[in-house]
């Protein structure tokens, strides 16, 4: 089980800025380990964000995203009590979903 995402929200005039820090190794599949062998690719492939269950953003990531990925985006038309949820899934089939409420 992976560590929870850290999600920060900032709301102003119905626009909520979402900042997310995920906890993931994000192996690029290019790097060589101590044994001289290439460390296999291990990365988050799919990310999606929903507002009250409706998908507002999806993303596809490669190994070029940094370790412990940071992501920032802004959702329009939000109001206090709205639920923003984020999900990621990696190439090993692990996934994680975290949810926050707009205040």
């Amino acid at each position, binding site marked *: 089980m992976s560590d929870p995402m850290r999600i920060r929200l900032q709301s102003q005039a119905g626009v909520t800025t979402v900042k997310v820090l995920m906890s993931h190794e994000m192996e*690029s599949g290019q790097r060589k380990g101590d044994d001289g062998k290439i460390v296999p690719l291990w990365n988050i492939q*799919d990310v999606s964000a929903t507002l009250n269950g409706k998908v507002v953003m999806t993303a*596809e990531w490669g*190994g070029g*995203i*940094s370790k412990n990925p940071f992501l*920032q985006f802004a959702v329009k038309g939000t109001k206090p009590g709205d639920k923003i949820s984020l999900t990621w899934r990696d190439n090993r089939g692990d996934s994680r979903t975290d949810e926050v409420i707009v205040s």
Partner: protein
Amino acid sequence: MNNSRRNVLKKSTAMAALLLQTLTQCERVYAYQQNAFDAKTIADLNKSLGLNLPLESSQITINTPEIAENGAVVQVAATTTLANIRRWIFVVEKNPVPLVAIFNLSEDLLPSITARAKFAQTSDFIAFAQLADGRVFYGKREVKVTLGGCGG
């Protein structure tokens, strides 16, 4: 006798498992645009994503550091005043895998995205913006890297 029968059984189960794995993998590749992440050049990338002749646009603003001491973590941000953007495609031109990320935006999103990318070496960061009508524009900016992000 019995032994060989057992072996056959074992092998066929293994085969079935393998087949199933290949099938599920194929399915995943379909959802996730693996061929785009396999592309080694911008031209291949544009072809695999079916992007129509991208044009450079001054309406795309890219925010990146001029110099990155550590190529492993470089904050990259893109925003645009173009209307109806549906997709951002983030590319680090000189990385072994140039495509870093694709973001599909709904109408409920502001057209600004920030992420952190690895830079193998000094390279242009290019952000392609695909609009609802299919037109593609891009903006780019060079990031000087003093220490690479994906070396061996």
